[in-house]
């Protein structure tokens, strides 16, 4: 009841004209940043930090928070329309989102993404409102061994996104992880796989892999196949109907819960929750063969998960002062500029500020829906624009986005190289999703392993003696067996059919 009273007070402050405008500006900018590949909320929040000199603390932080969760939604638009993941967390969305666009169903796909983001984002904020201190305590029970177990669990997703060949999927996952190994090692701080080139000390950006393989690879393939546009089918409905909503609501709820629970863990990348949610949805579906070919649930689940994760990430930030991601670390810098220290005391020393921010997150989620639903029709019609116009624009956008990562032409070159790799992968039927998954999960897995063994002085029993870790490892083994059996069954049914 106390939380409800505080929340009502927060709404009163959040509904001021200035704060409403800041929430709108933040969500609009965040959506735009999410749409543009390569640009992320981190750099945008950092660029707007000087505004803290002229705005009140609550107004500035409301805007920056709006950028953060707005960006999670924006990435889905280009994923669905153009097969370009605006954020790495949007990669699972394109697995079914872009096939839907090719079938002339971009509108329902975008609409479901918007509604799923709203439902899960709001669910996340509700849980944040009432359970922040309790949830923060639970999150602290996750240490490096538990992260190791969680990453193993996430890696099993690689099998189910491998398509028809597990070996190819595993090889692509290993390839993705090998690319991510380039750069500074977590244990020694020395560079790996650099071969004397200083430009490789900084590693290879995951976004260049995603943009190159998915966007450029798709465009080269489309040109070869002589495709006129993303879709040549008549664009029918531009909004999801009641049947679509009924079909996808369970996926939204499941994605939201998975995204929120995993998002409580500091350092848990929204891409991880999106992949896991996608995999869970595929496994519980009565028709898993639809996934990868235009299943609306395949859009609803990862989009809900990554928005719930962005809400959940505020739990460790506000309650413990632990930023879950680089973007939130910059946001935390915004707090500190005002002399505010996120953590348990913030609720006591500045309750008005905290509850205003939480209140504005409800409003921001509504704004995201109101902002983006009307644009669904416009985005959907872009799928009919001829490739001869769209493709050069998309290609240039990809390269500009790649450059903006680190202001380096090396990233442009890498994007082009991965574009060629993506084209060849499509040619020879190699799965693309495991590459991105391996490149995201691999470094986290390695760091967790190194830290775990450092904790236990080299004793591997630490993974067995901690119950949460053991449970996760056993769950990973079980999921691996289930995924492998599913692939074997689907191969057998294809053989029987022919």
């Amino acid at each position, binding site marked *: 009841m106390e939380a409800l009273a505080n929340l009502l007070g927060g709404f009163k402050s959040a509904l001021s004209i200035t704060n409403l405008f800041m929430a709108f500006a933040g969500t609009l900018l965040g959506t735009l940043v999410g749409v543009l590949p390569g640009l992320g909320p981190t750099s945008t929040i950092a660029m707007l930090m000087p505004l803290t000199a002229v705005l009140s603390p609550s107004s500035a932080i409301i805007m920056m928070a709006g950028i953060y969760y707005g960006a999670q939604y924006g990435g889905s638009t280009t994923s669905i329309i153009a097969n370009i993941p605006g954020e790495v967390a949007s990669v699972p969305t394109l697995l079914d989102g872009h096939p839907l666009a090719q079938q002339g169903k971009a509108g329902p796909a975008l609409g479901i993404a918007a509604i799923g983001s709203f439902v899960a984002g709001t669910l996340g904020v509700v849980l944040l409102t009432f359970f922040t201190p309790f949830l923060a305590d639970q999150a602290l029970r996750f240490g490096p061994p538990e992260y190791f177990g969680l990453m193993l669990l996430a890696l099993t997703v690689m099998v189910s996104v491998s398509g028809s060949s597990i070996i190819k999927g595993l090889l692509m996952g290993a390839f993705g992880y090998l690319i991510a190994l380039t750069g500074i090692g977590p244990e*020694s701080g*020395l560079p790996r796989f650099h071969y004397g080139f200083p430009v490789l000390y900084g590693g290879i950006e995951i976004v260049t892999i995603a943009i190159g393989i998915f966007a450029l690879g798709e465009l080269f393939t489309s040109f070869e196949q002589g495709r006129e546009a993303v879709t040549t089918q008549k664009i029918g409905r531009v909004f999801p109907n009641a049947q679509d909503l009924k079909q996808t609501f369970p996926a939204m709820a499941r994605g939201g819960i998975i995204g929120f629970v995993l998002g409580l863990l500091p350092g848990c990348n929204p891409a991880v929750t999106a992949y896991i949610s996608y995999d869970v949805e595929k496994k519980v579906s009565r028709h898993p063969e639809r996934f990868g070919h235009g299943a609306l649930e395949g859009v609803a689940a990862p989009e809900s998960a990554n928005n719930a994760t962005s809400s959940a990430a505020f739990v460790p930030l506000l309650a413990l002062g632990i930023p879950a991601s680089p973007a939130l670390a910059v946001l935390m810098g915004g707090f500190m500029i005002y002399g505010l220290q996120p953590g348990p005391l913030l609720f006591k020393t500045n309750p008005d500020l905290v509850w205003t921010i939480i209140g504005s997150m409800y409003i921001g989620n509504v704004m995201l829906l109101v902002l983006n639903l009307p644009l669904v029709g416009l985005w959907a019609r872009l799928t009919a624009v001829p490739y001869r116009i769209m493709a050069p624009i998309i290609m240039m956008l990809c390269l500009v986005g790649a450059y*903006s990562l680190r202001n380096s032409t090396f990233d442009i070159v890498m994007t*082009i190289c991965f574009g060629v790799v993506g084209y060849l992968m499509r040619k020879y039927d190699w799965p693309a999703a495991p590459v991105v998954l391996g490149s995201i999960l691999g470094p986290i897995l*390695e760091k967790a392993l190194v830290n775990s063994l450092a904790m236990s002085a080299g004793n591997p029993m630490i993974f067995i003696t901690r119950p949460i870790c053991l449970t996760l490892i056993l769950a990973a083994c079980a999921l691996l067996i289930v995924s492998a059996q599913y692939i074997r069954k689907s191969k057998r049914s294809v053989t029987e059919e022919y």
Partner: protein
Amino acid sequence: MDKQSIGDRVAGAIFVVMGIISLVESWRLYNIRTRGVVGDDTFPFILGSAMVVLGAVLAFFPTRTRQPVTWPNGRQAARMAAGFLMLVLFSFLLPFVGFPVATFIASLGLFVTLGRFRWYMAILISAALSGIFHAIFVAWLNLPFPKGLFGV
């Protein structure tokens, strides 16, 4: 032997080579490891071993598929190659001529080769595109693109 089998065998061989490279790097890192049970060499070793084994399996037992692998014909291939070269050109030109000019030149090439627009239309669209990109990325978002020879 169909094209898919050859493709899988070649890919398998490439992965074996990548695995060996990873194992060599792992050996280098192992020799400079100072402490701990697990070091920076551990995962390169695991990945390298996995790639060698799985790559060899794929090379000797390629997957079977009924979809033939086809390649673009002469003119199509030439257009695609030209488009690819435009992207490479952009990465080389950007530090020297600056963002707007590099964008204009590369997009002009793309609209002519892949878009098959006539020159005058391609010039108009490319000029508009580079102007819009400059407005969004440089003027509005303040991204630090190189100014190049022309100082723009």
